[in-house]
């Protein structure tokens, strides 16, 4: 059920609350964008994931 009680303080603090909300939301966007860039810079990432992946095994020098 939505909170319906209105208090005058809701109006007084509107700019603060909206401001903090926007800041937090933009911080999420920044961290997300940063993460995408940082992970992409690592190049292709693979690991053994329950299944053997032959391409991950370092080539053996036969000589």
């Amino acid at each position, binding site marked *: 059920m939505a909170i319906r009680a209105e*208090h*005058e*303080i809701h109006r*007084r*603090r509107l*700019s*603060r609350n*909206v*401001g*903090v909300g926007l800041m937090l939301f933009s911080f999420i966007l*920044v961290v997300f*964008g*940063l993460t*995408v*860039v*940082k992970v992409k*810079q690592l190049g292709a990432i693979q690991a053994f994931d329950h299944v053997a992946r032959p391409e991950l095994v370092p080539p053996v020098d036969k000589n």
Partner: protein
Amino acid sequence: MSDVMAAEHEYEAQFGDYFALLKPRVMTLVVFTAFVGLVVAPVQVHPMIGFCAILFIAVGAGASGALNMWWDADIDAVMKRTARRPIPAGKVTGQEALGIGLALSGFSVVMLGLAANLASAALLAFTIFFYAVIYSMWLKRATPQNIVIGGAAGAFPPMIGWVAATGSVSLEAVLMFGLIFMWTPPHFWALALFLKKDYDTAGVPMLTVTHGRRVTRAHIMAYTALLAPMAIWLGFTQIGGPVYLTVAVLANAWFVAGACRIWRRDEAAAEADGYRSEKAFFQFSLLYLFLHFLALLGDAGLRASGVM
């Protein structure tokens, strides 16, 4: 409930009041110089990482501004120039400013470390400590050289930007630091010459008050004379170029000539024309710094486009 009742008649701090604690006007200068430091560095930085680095440098600068306002609220209240800041104006309490300053300091340093590298984060932490503790708390009220020390804090951003890109300090970063560092004293002392009353009433030992206006004029001349060769030297490093050198030679010629005029005048002459030379010098000093960093960007643009 009683808290809410009690708070009803008080002023409610708006978001903008908290934002004003971060000294937005100083922040624009920090953003600009840090941006130039990062862009002219010889290492390519991904735009998103560059954006984040500058954002967190700016937040760190803002945090140190909030700490400064918390500490200096008593003198801000008696100076006309600063009396409308959020704490002396009664909009935000000192404790809130302290909390915001400390929280944002830690936040910005950690985030810069994650976004760029640890060296730049350490430098940002040192800058905040330098401005809030060494400058605001220890030296601002203790020595008439306070402007020189405060200038060092303002000179760090391009160096942090450079280190965020390259991971280490080099000659170019030091010279960009030196450019702002040597520029700050003449800039502020020119202001102090024509804004006489403020610092007197606050009891901050400005050079104009402690050693007189004659000595201040000589100091403006001395710092400007040291600034000019440093500014031109930067033009001969790998980040300099024809655009920067042209701007540096012209702007420094004007600046040295302006400092000379200030040095030669006495108070009677300055009073007679309403401090025209001092005001002109101060106004040009703002343009001076902007032009130098803009010229560095110009040369970086020429190099990027393959002209040089």
